[in-house]
């Protein structure tokens, strides 16, 4: 049935994972972080991955972000198998197809917002990076803070810079790891609004790892991880009500 949906170009999922297994060898003990995870994420979806610590959600995020390779199972990104690739090949995929947003922002202290956003394009050797970075900053509403360094920006502004950095290369999806975890409630709301808005207006496929129910409630679909497996995969009330 899956091959059927792949033949249809429009329905090619952005993410397709099949029986994904990840086992860490810690000395003599094997830790089964993922025990066979399968799901598809279609273009333009906004999905929350929830679970307690140790549920395997971080491992899943690393695999989906091409930061790590699975022990078994397959992962198709944009219909292409991400298999046993070299470090550099994985770096190229991350550069072109994935935009990361981290809990702790992960900006470089020495650089201005503009330079942070230019950075992915630097590695992509994009000649128009200045202009594209300015556009991305405008999208997140920071056009008047472009030359500020992280220390001169609030937490919410820093996370907006990080979102601009994730968007600037036109990735296939944005992976956000607890994007509101370090923010107060009001700012967290703003950031979630921005992510939802970007998803709605620009059809940016977005995966958000979170353990906050109200964050998850603003997405369309929630994948619940328990002990390295998918325990539930449901549409949210928001999606069902069609808001």
């Amino acid at each position: 049935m899956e091959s059927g949906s792949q033949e249809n170009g429009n329905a090619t999922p952005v993410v397709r994972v099949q029986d994904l297994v990840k086992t860490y060898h810690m000395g003599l003990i094997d830790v089964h972080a993922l025990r066979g995870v399968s799901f598809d994420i279609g273009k333009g979806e906004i999905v929350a991955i929830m679970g307690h610590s140790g549920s395997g959600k971080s491992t899943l995020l690393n695999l989906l972000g091409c930061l790590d390779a699975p022990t078994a199972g397959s992962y198709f990104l944009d219909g292409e198998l991400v298999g046993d690739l070299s470090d550099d090949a994985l770096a190229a995929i991350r550069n072109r197809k994935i935009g990361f947003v981290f809990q702790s922002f992960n900006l470089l202290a020495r650089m201005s917002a503009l330079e942070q956003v230019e950075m992915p394009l630097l590695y992509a050797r994009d000649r128009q990076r200045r202009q594209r970075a300015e556009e991305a900053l405008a999208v997140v509403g920071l056009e008047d803070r472009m030359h500020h360094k992280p220390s001169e920006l609030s937490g919410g502004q820093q996370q907006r810079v990080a979102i601009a950095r994730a968007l600037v290369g036109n990735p296939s999806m944005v992976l956000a790891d607890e994007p509101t975890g370090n923010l107060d409630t009001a700012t967290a709301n703003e950031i979630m609004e921005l992510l939802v808005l970007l998803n709605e207006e620009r059809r940016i496929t977005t995966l958000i790892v979170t353990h906050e129910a109200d964050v998850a409630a603003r997405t369309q679909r929630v994948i619940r991880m328990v002990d390295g497996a998918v325990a539930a995969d449901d549409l949210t009330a928001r999606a069902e009500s069609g808001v």
Partner: protein
Amino acid sequence: MSLADGVRLALRALAANKLRTSLTVLGMVIGVAAVIALMSLGAGAQASIEANIRGTGSNLLFISPGVQSATGGRFVDVSATSPTLTLADAEAIRDAAIPGIVDIAPTRNTNASLVAGGNAFSTQIIGVTPSYAEVRTFQPQAGRFITDDDLRRRARVIALGQTIATELFPGQNPIGATLRLNNQTFTVIAVMEESGQATFQSRDNQALVPLTTLQTRISPSRTLAGDDIVSEISVTLADEDEATIEAVTNEVSALLRLRHDVTEDDFTIRTQQDIIEALGEVTGTLTLFLGAIAGISLLVGGIGIMNIMLVSVTERTREIGIRKAIGARRRDILVQFLIEAVLVSLGGGIAGAVIGGLLATYMGGVSFGGRSLEGALTPEPVILALAVSVAIGLVFGIYPANRAARLRPIEALRYE
């Protein structure tokens, strides 16, 4: 990432830690400056020795008794054990009228003490003929040189080098004054021009007397056959052509072998060039040795770079993780850190070359123990030092850079 972007990034990173960067650069500056200053001084010494030898006449042949070591470079003078060169040999060479020979000057050396008033000076006394002044380009500054008449009369006259003149007759005009040599009274007829330091001993420390006077009155020395022995015969050539030198060498050798009735040479003929080359080997080795010592500090500078780059990689683990997460390949990270290392070493190299050059120039005027050092700033050590400093940046930077490049992004991102 393009090279220009890499350089820009590296400069930013280096500027973020100014004190640390400057100290690391300083290590390279000291190393490179030391190499350039010492090698320039070595080259300067070599050049001044060469100039001094050339100053004594550049179209000279020296015939000395005994056979010189065949290994070249070392002059093993065996004349003491087999004195085989005589005044008669010198006269025979002159009388043979070999084409290419302009003039000859036989000499014999001995050591003696000169006493004038309360001053004494122990030095080398050279018995010479009037042709010596022309042949060895060593003219009196005041007074007159030794004449044929002096030679014939075995006159007790003496020409003094500059140093002896000022030592024996401080503040006086020595011309016409008398001094005691071997309990005999000699009249000073000349003070020679200043010659600077020649090879191993300065001609300013030498005193010249007529050859016949030395032979009869100071230090008689004859062969069994009764011929006067000479230490050396200098020969002036018409020109410096290889062909002339070879032709004259062959003719003189044949003549001397015939006169000495030997098949193997029992004398040695050296050219000015031979002497320069032999000394060049010595000073070249010295220069290299000095350079090697200075090179050690360059090595230490390189280790300093490696050390600071390792610290930097550890400190910036998270930055490396972020860069890798957003798509930096191994090579991008490697190049970024390598450029930093090379910029530090090259910066140190350039500053060191400037300081080393200044040191070499200014040390040229400073004198040590009466000998003035001469710096000769040639482009070779500068180019060498810059190339070496880039190489040091690469060699000592590659390990830290590679460590950075191989960091796994997940672990690097988790690093606090």
